[in-house]
């Protein structure tokens, strides 16, 4: 394109049109926005060479791991339509951009979705659990799931409830986009591969442990939470120490005694979920009428104040919902600590109305657990008991 504006006349490559302006890449590499009427086409840009042809050398002596991609920052690059980053990478692209993965294992890849994690849904959790189960049945030594970080903890917990696994199932993402030289994607992925090839036998999240590129933490799927919007070390184990860590760049994995070891479980899949479940954060002055919106819901997790409270004027409506067949579980906005509705009058009234104390479960974990419990246990009373039973490491017997 030739671009003439005032005293300026330049040529550049037309890249896209956005919000009525043409994006032009000048020879210097700079982009500028230009009015389309000031542009004149002078020729066709040389076709671009196919992006990088490098391949990963697969060493047959190494164990085989499965990479299941769902999208997210770890697999993101620029979208010229919106100018923002989107997920357009496949697992193969990840292998190509992090060749050191080839020193750890061989890989097969599989794509379940290519979405940003805010678009995740229970149906994809189910597809993901099935895909992982499939890989386990095919004899994979370990599974790596690449996932956007926003809802990665929920997906990991959901998979944990649906799946029994003898091999490591490791969720990994990145907080800083893969298209930047400082991205945490390479280190996180390498650490996740080390864990997937290692001795763990449960579902975990592996992400940066600190702001340094020094080690990743291994978090239990049902006790992990994203606690920062942008930092590399956003993921934290809540109410327990991480299951272990991976040193970088040595990739030496250390697991705590508490970590379930490889082979401890037989493979199994129970992938029914009751999707008519909701999560509701209480705030001061929240009108009880809100509860009408949840009529017909099978389950409701409330994120209450402090020890697990909502306003006294909620109790009649709550009782109606519970009598109408909704299982109601109480968790806390504090995130740290255990719910106890036996201390104050409001709490006792809540218990009398039939609210179930969610122990020290994280609210999001309680939600996916409730979906899974109600999907697999039709009897409300037994479902209530299950909600207070530790099924997958989601409830700590002791608070420390």
């Amino acid at each position, binding site marked *: 394109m030739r671009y003439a504006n005032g005293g300026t006349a330049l040529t550049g490559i037309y890249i896209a049109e956005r919000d009525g302006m043409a994006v032009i890449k000048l020879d210097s590499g700079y*982009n*500028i926005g*230009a009015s389309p009427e*000031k542009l004149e086409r002078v020729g066709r840009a040389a076709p*671009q060479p196919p992006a990088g042809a490098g391949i990963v050398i697969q060493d047959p002596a190494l164990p085989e791991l499965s990479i299941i991609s769902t999208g997210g920052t770890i697999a993101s690059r620029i979208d010229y339509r919106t*100018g923002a980053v989107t997920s357009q990478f496949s697992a193969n692209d990840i292998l190509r951009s992090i060749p050191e993965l080839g020193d750890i294992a061989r890989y097969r890849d599989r794509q379940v979705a290519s979405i940003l994690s805010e678009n995740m849904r229970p149906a994809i959790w189910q597809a993901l659990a099935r895909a992982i189960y499939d890989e386990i049945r095919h004899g994979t030594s370990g599974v790596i799931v690449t996932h956007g970080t926003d809802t990665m903890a929920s997906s990991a917990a959901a998979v944990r409830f649906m799946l029994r696994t003898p091999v490591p199932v490791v969720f990994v993402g990145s907080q800083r986009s893969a298209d*930047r030289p*400082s991205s945490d994607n390479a280190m996180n992925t390498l650490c996740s591969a080390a864990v997937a090839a290692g001795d763990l036998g449960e579902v975990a999240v592996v992400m940066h442990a600190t702001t340094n*590129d020094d080690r990743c933490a291994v978090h239990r799927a049902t006790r992990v939470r994203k606690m920062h919007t942008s930092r590399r070390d956003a993921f934290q184990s809540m109410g327990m120490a991480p299951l272990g860590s991976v040193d970088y*760049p040595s990739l030496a994995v250390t697991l705590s005694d508490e970590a379930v070891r490889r082979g401890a479980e037989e493979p199994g899949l129970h992938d029914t979920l009751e999707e008519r479940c909701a999560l509701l954060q209480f705030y001061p002055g929240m009108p009880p009428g809100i509860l009408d919106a949840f009529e017909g819901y099978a389950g409701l997790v409330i994120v209450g104040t402090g020890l697990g409270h909502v306003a006294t004027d909620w109790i009649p409506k709550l009782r109606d919902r519970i009598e109408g067949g909704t299982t109601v579980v109480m968790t806390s906005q504090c995130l740290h600590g255990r719910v106890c509705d036996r201390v104050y009058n409001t709490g006792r009234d809540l218990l009398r109305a039939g609210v179930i104390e969610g122990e020290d479960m994280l609210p999001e974990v309680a939600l996916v657990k409730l979906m899974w419990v109600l999907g697999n246990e039709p009897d409300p009373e037994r479902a209530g008991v299950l909600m207070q039973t530790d099924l997958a490491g989601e409830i700590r017997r002791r608070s420390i």
Partner: protein
Amino acid sequence: MDYKDLGLKAGIEIHQQLDTAEKLFCRCPTVLRDVADRTGEFYRYLRATESELGEIDRAAEEEMKLVRKFCYYTYDTVCLVDHDEEPPTPMNPEALDICLTIAKMLGMTPVEQIHTMRKLVVDGSNTSGFQRTALVALSGTLPDGCRIETICLEEEAAQRVEGETFSLDRLGIPLVEITTAPCMRTPEAVQEVAAYIGMVLRSTGRVKRGLGTIRQDINVSIAGGARVEIKGVQELDLIAEVVRREVDRQTSLLAIRDALRDRGARVDRTVVDVTALFAGTKSAVLKKAKSILAIRLCGFAGLVGREIQPGRRLGSEMSDYAKKCGVGGIFHTDELPAYGVTAEEVARLREFVGAGDDDCVAIVAASRERAGCAAEQVMIRADMALAGVPEETRKMLEEGSSAYMRPLPGAARMYPETDVFPIALSGALWEGIRVPELLTDRAERFVREFGLDGALARQVAFSERLPLFERAVAAGVRPTLAARTLLATCRELARGGVAIDRVSEDDILALLSAVEAGRAAKEAIPDLLAELARTADESAGTPRERVDAAIAKMAPAVSQADVESIVRRIVAEREAFAREKGMGALGPLMGVVMQELRGSVDGKVVSETLRRELKRLLS
């Protein structure tokens, strides 16, 4: 040397830090810190990424020959954006306003919509691995007709503390990058253009001052040579010398190329492992190396050691390339025996690799992997010598020579900054940008309006004290008094060891006002400034109160009667001298009286009193 005959073409890139309250893409202050005040350290690795067109920039790729761990110092004036732990804020509007002001002063045309880019820089100086930069305006002109191609607004990089350790205080400070066309034909012209642009930048009154706040990169090529960019020239006075030395270098490299071609020189592709030859060597470098590799450069003898610019040889260039692999440098037979390598070892080496008299042998010593990498780099640079002058980015060394840094970066290092929205520049915004008076015009105005002499006017206009000068004049201080105090007096006091920087501008202004109001004599200014500097930490109150306290201590007001009695006493004490010299005693006695009065009284008053007293005595 006739630079026109040599086909010299030079251009310049000027990087100037802007004096904004906050950084370009975060809300941190733009202050530099002492590394001792750091609040923490962290470290990261960087890896080169592909551009959106799927290419890896060659400069970035070269930097990534080594996996490098970078350490960063952080401060309480640095935030998560600087840590690359948070997306950037929108572009600082104050910085954009300054950039547009400069663009307008240079007669440039703004782009219609600014797109912030990421310029890949993986040498560790940016935590993200890129520098954010945006093209703001195009096509300006300089008075000599030379064209300015672009002005960009970009983030400053982190400062290297040492090795791979960087300090984050400087990262993100806004700077403008002004790039001229390669339109200069002599070394002096480059320096003049740099001086002119520097003057334009300072005319805004909104750029940072002091060492390191302005840096020049110089582009130089000669006919048959190649475009070379020399980075980081901080002193204006060195610019012409840098250009001259680069012309020397390119001329010499072309002469070496011709000599090599005449001799039919070539690079032997076989790298020979000569580790065993040096088993008993006295050379410390060779002794500790696991692997020593030799490269035979056929027909290169004498040329590798030939000087191409002061302190630099073709061998230095090869050494720079080899250093990219993490080795300390290379040895070559043009400079051996030396460094503990004996003549006998050299002879054995030559024989072992089959080198003839015309051949030069280069050796690299390091771990097997690094030595292999370095040997390949030496061959690459030797091949380049056969072709002439390579295109390169170089860094300036002391006194104006330069060393190889990396290949010239290409367009592939530019990637859109996806976290920053484009900014539309409306016509109204551009029209609203006020163009400040050029410092050169201002100096002329000071001559015209204030009657300052030309040199002083120029000094004031270009001084950092210009805003204070203008405030003082607006407050009724005589321009000459203001100019002399702010420039001459302050400079002399500073030379005399007075911490004049500690005196606030408000205090100086109050002092000048006190002199104009007759509360102190202008002769007392140096003493009063020294006193204000001495008590800068302890004194409370308003500037006027502080100045009055200094006057009370250093130069208490003296009545006319006191002056007369002192003058009378001094004349009486030196009566013989006065009678001998007559009115000629006025000058010497003036000094005695002024010393006694310690500048408390205006010299004019003293001199009139003294004259009267002398006349009385002599009559």
